[in-house]
């Protein structure tokens, strides 16, 4: 064999070996391999404390997390359990949405005392830029999420351009219930200048130190995506997939329906006058999804959140209107999202805004809702199963 032919032959072998190495790599998206007993995962509930507060008597309390500040809005809150009978909440405050002074705040709630700590600033664009070592023009949506190991994740939008299209996702992690946080790290989720991904709703925990994080794309076209995050190493691994090829749906809210089935509900950002919340199912843990269907829930192109109760029923907090965000309601479904009933109208005041709810069950079994109250404050509602069952008994014909 000639010398040059030999070189070409060896080069080919070398290339084939490298491609075989790539073939043997384990993808972060595990698909059906990720299925596990639902009781072991049960969304974000890891373990219950021994003495849950307000166990027998109905509990329904409302309070505000932060004070109203002149010329400032507070928006896009997110709540998650942080351990030891406490809940943590994050939101952003600033002159307005997409203002340069937007900063992300954190506060914790003691379920036994029923009080919130004084909010503290977690991050603003200057500290984000310093931590990321990258230019950050503005900050946006924050999301708080607790993984199975008890780590608290703050995902937030770090914008490099003026509008939401310039949004990229960064994250910080806390290993001590939100007292101290790691420096920010950026996620690379799009091939085109890393534009433009954003967060709104919590993820779901899976086995093997993995969780699924719902995100969405909104540059030119809007569509939902799912990020599989593996946290087994210090340097996290993740990959992103489209949930659906359809457009005009964002801010997915995920529910682990059964051991390998995920349901997702989407904010409808289409142009139709009467828009409904959309939903889709995946029977292989997010690898592939059914065709999207309409739910009976109205949606004025606004954020909402859904959880699954221990008995399998779904509870959601939505803007119960086709046109605006003045009505915020707690709704329940006994048939996995096919039909819904109004449990309680939380807010209803014409021409005002009550929006962007976040709902979750705490480690104590209490249900917590946070939402934007008239764009000035973040309001918090806590209730227990007894209150929920009492309300359910009194349900009338308020079918949606």
């Amino acid at each position, binding site marked *: 064999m000639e010398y040059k032919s030999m070189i*070409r032959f060896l080069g080919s072998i070398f290339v084939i070996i490298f491609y075989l190495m790539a073939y043997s790599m384990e993808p972060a998206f595990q698909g059906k391999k990720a299925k596990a007993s639902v009781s072991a995962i049960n969304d974000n509930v890891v373990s219950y404390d021994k003495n849950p507060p307000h166990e027998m008597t109905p509990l329904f309390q409302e309070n505000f997390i932060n004070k109203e500040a002149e010329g400032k809005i507070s928006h896009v809150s997110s709540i998650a359990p942080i351990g030891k009978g406490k809940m943590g909440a994050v939101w952003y405050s600033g002159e307005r949405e997409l203002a340069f002074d937007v900063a992300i705040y954190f506060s914790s709630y003691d379920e036994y005392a029923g009080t919130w700590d004084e909010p503290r600033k977690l991050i603003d664009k200057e500290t984000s830029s310093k931590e990321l070592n990258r230019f950050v023009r503005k900050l946006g949506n924050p999301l708080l999420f607790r993984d199975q190991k008890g780590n608290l994740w703050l995902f937030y939008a770090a914008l490099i351009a003026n509008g939401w299209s310039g949004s990229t996702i960064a994250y910080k992690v806390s290993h001590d219930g939100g007292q101290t946080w790691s420096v920010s790290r950026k996620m*690379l989720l799009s091939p085109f200048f890393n534009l433009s991904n954003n967060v709104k709703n919590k993820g779901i925990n899976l086995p093997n130190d993995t969780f699924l994080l719902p995100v969405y794309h909104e540059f030119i076209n809007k569509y939902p995506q799912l990020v599989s995050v593996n946290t087994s190493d210090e340097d996290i691994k993740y990959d992103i997939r489209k949930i659906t090829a359809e457009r005009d749906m964002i801010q997915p809210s995920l529910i682990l329906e059964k051991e390998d089935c995920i349901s997702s509900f989407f904010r409808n950002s289409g142009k139709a006058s009467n828009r409904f919340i959309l939903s889709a199912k995946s029977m292989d843990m997010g690898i592939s999804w059914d065709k999207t269907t309409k739910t009976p829930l109205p949606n004025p192109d606004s954020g909402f959140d859904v959880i699954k109760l221990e008995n399998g029923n779904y509870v959601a907090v939505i803007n119960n209107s086709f046109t605006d965000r003045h009505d915020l309601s707690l709704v329940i479904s006994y048939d996995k999202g096919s039909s819904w009933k109004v449990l309680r109208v939380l807010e209803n005041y014409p021409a005002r805004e009550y929006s962007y709810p976040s709902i979750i069950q705490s480690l104590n079994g209490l249900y917590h809702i946070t939402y934007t109250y008239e764009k000035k404050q973040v309001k918090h509602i806590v209730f227990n199963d007894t209150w929920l069952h009492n309300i359910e008994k009194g349900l009338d014909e308020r079918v949606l």
Partner: protein
Amino acid sequence: MKEYFEYIFPFLLILYILSWSGRQIGISRKKNSIISLATIILSAILCLLPIGDLSIGDYMLSFNPSFSVGIISLLIILLTKELSGRELLREKDLLWFSIWNLSISLILYSSSLGFIGTDMYGAGYHFSLIFVITAALTLAMIFIKSRLYIIFTGYIVVFNLKILPSDNFFDHITDGVLFFASAIIILRFILRYKGIRLVNYQTDPEGKLHEGI
């Protein structure tokens, strides 16, 4: 490793700009190792030294956080030509490389920006059709003796070594900057091709067209 490797493109770009600017004002680095060394050091300083809070390299990485093997290769080709006058890639190969970059980018961005339903980018995290295509093209290039095989081999080597910020194979092949750079290269080829045709057909003093003057 990733933290250092991501600065390669910003460093090479600054080096290229400095070298090109030097040539424009008559400073030649050819056979002058001191000027070459000074240019390299200055490029590294400009790339890494913070101006305010961030360096030029950080600003570049803010807007395009992962520079592909493709754009780094293209810059090395341009830089080598600028510094030594040597062409690492024949013009025809450069054109084919740019067509490949533009084509793969257009398909990828159409998917990523939601114009087509297929989830191309998601297929770049694990072994999929794109790996088979690039493997086949690499082998084909080895056998047709095209130097492009070096760049194509670079995709999979860097992917396996995990030294780019992204773990997605598509981010090793292309990026937004390469997309625009390839479009410009193709446009230049088109314009030059048209120019050559105009030169080849010229009129003589009697007004008759003649080819190949």
